């Protein structure tokens, strides 16, 4: 049985800069894997290669044993990989419910004609989609805000809404880019519960996170990047005691990596 996701020694080059240098790791089905490293280590670049926003120059990415390298982002989502963005990318002027419906989009079938003519099948599908999306909102605890404008939500709630939007795509693997970024302790605590609940639904989680306490608490496996190189991987205890990792982390812990 192969891994759910296999990143097979990918190399990504921007101009003359080697952003990722033969990075390879696997994500087993049902696990929670953390991707960590100092700023500029290439974590988000790895995510963007998986989601199809970037195409790596060398190497391959296999999802359920099938190559997804070079596939368009929307195709990758349809195949079962959903993501959230580091810099929140909600549709701020649209309602909370409509944001989740955006995630549901790829599982719906109504086309141009059934939409123009408002067919019974289209209406039934809409109803089901709305019901499902409200359930996802309930899952992250935002159901009472369904009518609000997404941009008006508190910061932590916006992050949770991104998670709900990703879950609405029926993913097998969900990729969270700094889900706790900008959250206070209380919000982080509820996020941990949400992540655990996601896994309990049988969805595999891959996340980038700076909050080390969070990472150590929930991840079964860690992958550590530094300057585009993979310097360690394994369970949290092993990684924490790795001398390379300790060195990489000294003195560098905040700032922002651009999407």
């Amino acid at each position, binding site marked *: 049985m192969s891994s759910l996701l296999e990143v097979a020694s990918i190399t990504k080059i921007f101009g003359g800069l080697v952003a990722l240098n033969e990075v390879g790791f696997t994500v087993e089905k049902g696990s929670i894997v953390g991707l960590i490293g100092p700023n500029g280590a290439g974590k988000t670049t790895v995510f963007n290669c998986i989601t199809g*926003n970037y195409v790596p120059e060398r190497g391959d990415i296999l999802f359920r044993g099938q190559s997804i390298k070079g596939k368009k*982002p*929307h195709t990758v989502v349809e195949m079962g990989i959903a993501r959230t963005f580091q810099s929140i990318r909600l549709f701020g002027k649209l309602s909370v419910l*409509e944001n989740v419906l955006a995630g549901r989009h790829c599982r719906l079938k109504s086309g141009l004609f059934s*939409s123009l003519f408002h067919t019974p099948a*289209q209406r039934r599908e809409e109803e089901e989609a709305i019901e499902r999306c409200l359930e996802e909102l309930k899952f992250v605890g935002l159901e*009472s805000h369904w009518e609000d*404008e997404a941009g008006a939500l508190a910061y932590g709630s916006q992050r949770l809404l991104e998670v709900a939007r990703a879950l609405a795509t029926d993913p097998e693997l969900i990729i969270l880019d700094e889900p706790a970024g900008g959250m206070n302790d209380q919000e982080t605590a509820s996020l941990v519960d949400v992540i655990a609940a996601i896994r309990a639904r049988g969805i595999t989680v891959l996340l980038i996170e700076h909050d080390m306490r969070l990472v150590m608490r929930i991840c079964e496996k860690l992958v550590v990047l530094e300057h585009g190189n993979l310097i360690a991987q394994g369970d949290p205890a092993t990684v924490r005691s790795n001398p390379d990792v300790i060195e990489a982390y000294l003195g560098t812990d905040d700032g922002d990596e651009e999407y």
Partner: protein
Amino acid sequence: MNTRKVRFITGLALGIVLAVLPFFVNNYWTDVCVSIGLYALLALSLNVILGQAGIFHMGHAAFYAVGAYTTAILNTMFQWPIFWTMPLAGLAAGLVALVVARPIIHLRGDYLLIVTIGIVEIVRIALVNDIFGITGGSNGIFGISRPQAFGFRIVKSIHFYYLVWGMCGISLLLFHFLWNSRFGRALNYIKHDDIAAEGCGVDVSHYKLMAFVLGAFWAGMAGTLYSAKMLTIAPASFNFMESVIIFAVVILSGGSQLGVLVSAFLFIGLPEVMRGLTESRMLFFGLAMMLMMVWRPQGILPPLPRVYKKALARAQALAREKSE
């Protein structure tokens, strides 16, 4: 009263006025209203592309021309009845849109705008040069026959008035359905943030292209009505300025369908009303536009949030479950 109610009543009042208007005004004003109706129809179709999907397309007159010429050619050369040519005019315009938009649809904002201006010029020049020997060069095509339906010949201004505004009514309804659907939402997601839309699983280039083709299809059908009304068409009627006017009507409208109607009346009707000012009327018109941009940069009537009646009941049920 909330905004939604005010708009509903305004829309209803406008509908009633439009339904009886020709009985109270002379032929000249009926003709002006036919012209407004045609622009409203074109602007409604452009609204799908520009207002809903946020694609900066300033070449809508090109698709209008393709539709008008398709009708004119089929009617004068092959004696097709006008109404039969309508779906073909739409298809021809949609096909042209598909072919020209496919390679450019990924362009962003102003870049796309420039290319679409190119499209309208290419179509106009092709028509002037009597392409395939069927467009009549710069003189255009004349001798288009009157439309006929169920033995009734549409001749008078008042007939055209109801034809054009009837078509507007149907378009309003269908585009309203479209807006309240998965398709309409997808266009909005793209308008707000196309990278996020793609990242959520929306096939961005597919939907952009579909919006383009649908808008062009509708403009092509509007072209049929134009041919039938004018009886003579020439390339000069489909110049860049026409595109700019349709574009401006949509921008001024704010993006809602009621806004498009109001905007079409202001844009096409106001210069007619101000005819008494003779030379200076465009000056006043320009001033009105400037004031508009200062006081209401978001447009006359931006769309209100969608209503999800089904969601309300469901959300209340969820809230009850929680409290128990």
